[in-house]
């Protein structure tokens, strides 16, 4: 008994304890070891997000159009002097209609939406608003799983395979540019035939959607649907890297175009640093009177509804 280390205040019957103790300790040691290993692995998994590389910034979807090592930096300029909400042609805004067609956007999703804003001095202006592709995007900052991410070209995309549908991105976006799939959306069945492509997704239930700046169009040398469809060529698509932009008819030096026309961005004070610039105006270049309010309501051409699909109001 004197040789054994005393481990408790109340020593029990020595013989049985002497033999029993080593066995208990071994089992306990094993349990502690397993417990420690389990705790360590849980801890590692818990802390892993803190040190995971490359999340939050440009990661997936290597969509770059590489010429040498330079990457395009897409931007848009919308000349509001030429936008009259398609009043003069008596149609719903053609940019929105073309986008809906090109992306099979279901009702009520308008990835580019033409708002009618009151001008401070009286009258109104039409403001076609696509996703502003912010360089400090609040939607990207808050996404818990990185489903909203930025490509090297600065285009903010949504990975519908990763999105968990928490909608914090929609709460964070200050431009009202995100749309949720509240149910199976009413889209034509053929839109579901294509394999999933993060650059050209279709609408689905339970995830978020928005304008994606049509990067797949730019890569094959085409303008986005909205820019192509505008009857007064008000939408310019450009590259900040090469400092050039076009509306399909004319080419401009982007920086000069912005500077000489007092271009601004929406909600500049929020620090989102959008890539969509606006040239102030109210459609005067196409002869619009700023006091002439109203535009035709957007229409969605899909009559087919898949089983269980419903539409909703925003």
């Amino acid at each position: 008994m004197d040789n054994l280390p005393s481990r408790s205040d109340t020593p029990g019957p020595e013989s049985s304890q002497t033999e029993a103790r080593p066995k208990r300790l071994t089992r306990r040691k094993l349990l502690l070891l397993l417990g420690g290993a389990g705790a360590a692995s849980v801890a590692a998994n818990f802390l892993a997000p803190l040190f995971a590389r490359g999340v939050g910034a440009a990661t997936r979807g290597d969509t770059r159009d590489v010429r040498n090592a330079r990457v395009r930096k897409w931007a848009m300029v919308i000349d509001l002097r030429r936008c009259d909400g398609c009043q003069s042609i008596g149609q719903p805004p053609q940019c929105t209609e073309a986008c809906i067609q090109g992306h099979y956007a279901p009702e009520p999703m308008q990835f580019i939406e033409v708002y009618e804003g009151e001008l401070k001095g009286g009258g109104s202006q039409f403001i076609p608003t696509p996703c502003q592709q912010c360089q400090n995007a609040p939607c990207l900052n808050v996404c818990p799983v990185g489903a909203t991410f930025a490509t090297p070209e600065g285009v903010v995309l949504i990975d519908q395979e990763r999105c968990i549908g928490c909608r914090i991105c929609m709460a964070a976006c200050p431009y009202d540019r995100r749309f949720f799939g509240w149910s199976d959306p009413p889209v034509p069945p053929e839109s579901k035939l294509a394999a999933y492509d993060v650059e050209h997704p279709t609408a689905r239930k339970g995830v978020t959607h928005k304008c994606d700046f049509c990067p797949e169009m730019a890569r094959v040398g085409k303008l986005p649907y909205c820019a192509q469809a505008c009857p007064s060529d008000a939408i310019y698509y450009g590259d900040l890297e090469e400092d050039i932009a076009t509306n399909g008819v004319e080419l401009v030096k982007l920086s000069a175009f912005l500077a000489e026309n007092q271009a601004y961005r929406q909600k500049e004070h929020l620090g989102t640093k959008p890539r969509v610039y606006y040239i102030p105006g109210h459609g005067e270049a196409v002869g619009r009177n700023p006091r002439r309010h109203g535009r035709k309501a957007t229409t969605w051409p899909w009559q087919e509804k898949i089983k269980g699909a419903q539409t909703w109001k925003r």
Partner: protein
Amino acid sequence: MEKVTESRREGLERTVLRPLVHTGKGYRLLVGFLVLVVLWGAYAYSTQLQQGLIVTGMRDRILWGFYITLFVFFIGISHAGTLISAILRVVKAQWRTPVTRMAEFITVVALSVGGLMPMLDLGRPDRIPNLFLFGRWQSPILWDLFSITTYLTGSIIYLYLPLIPDLALCRDRLGTEAAAWKRTFYRAASLGWQGTVRQKKYLNIALKCMMVLIIPVAVSVHTVVSWIFAMTLREPWNSTVFGAYFVAGAIFSGIAAIVIVMAILRRAFHLEAHIGNRHFINLGYMLGAFALIMLYFNATEYLVTGYKMAGEAPVHFLQLFFREYAPFFWFYIIGGMVIPGLIILVPQTRTFAGVLVASGLVLIGMWLERFIIVVAGLRVPLMPYEPSSYTPSWVEWSVMAGAAAMFCLVIAIFAKLVPVIAIWEVAEQYEEHEAKETALTPEAPEQAAWPQWGRAAGPAAEQGSTSGGTT
């Protein structure tokens, strides 16, 4: 003289242990009813899984509703335990002892139910593993995940630690009256507690660590919950005060929750001898103090924003003060803070009944406050469009009922499994009280079965240092 102590403690043990072995018809009916409501809530949720979130009243513009309101509300209530158990333990407020166990119950259950709510709100709940596989630490939702799991773990530990001596008591006292599985549970969960010096020492260290640690953890939890809103650029949410405001609101609603749960359990288990009106009045004082704190926060928020009326503030003020949400807002301010504050301040109304009514009003008011923050905050238009409206659907009402029922159900089950009062702590206070009254010799404490908690020097030193005992 020793008889007095024995019978008081015996009385305590007998009363508190009784519900663990006797189950009345009323209890069975209640549990049956609660289970039905939970099942109904589950059915409502299943329709949401099938059809999508369109079965709720949420849409693109008001994209959060009841689920997130309940999330914030339940996480808020969970701060009950922190306050009563930890803060009051740290400042050695003696009157808290009968209340601590229930407060810790509420914390664990509220955290569990609250943590479940955002999962019900997801469009793709099958992708929850993405949070672990691809989680971004820059996201407020991940901060919630980190802090809520940390707080839940800490609360379970903190509930369990002081429970060990009571579980040992159950193991020793309850013979065949308790079901066999219960006896096995007590034997296993009490970890062989014998009240030895070493065990007391270990428990003491553990409890001291946890009681200090759980306070900053709890504060961080509701702060990061508030940052789900404050880290966005929405005008009504773009405020730096959200963290402190939410923590104060959480403690406020937590106190109200304890009062109500305690009142119900006291009545159901006939614990009047051990939980007197004094406890309710003390909780009432704290309720009143927090009502004033909340009024101060609200006044600051609205005065500072309203003086300037910048941006969309006029829209928000109109909808809150005069138009769509005015009834909810004014009920929250007047019914949820002013009236409870007055009830506590006015001596004639500062009674058990008064505190109970005040707590009920506070809980309703705080639920409305969460609702207003979420829904009215989202309603302010970001671009030139007409504001939408939000009408919760039957699915959301059912899920809310199910969540509330789940909360009550789990507490009811706990109450049948473990003593609702921390027997050993209260018993030791009775003994102190008796010892002071009758000037017992040091012999008696050593004879007493229960460890003299936190006493190194011996009974003589303790009598001078401790304050007055319980009723």
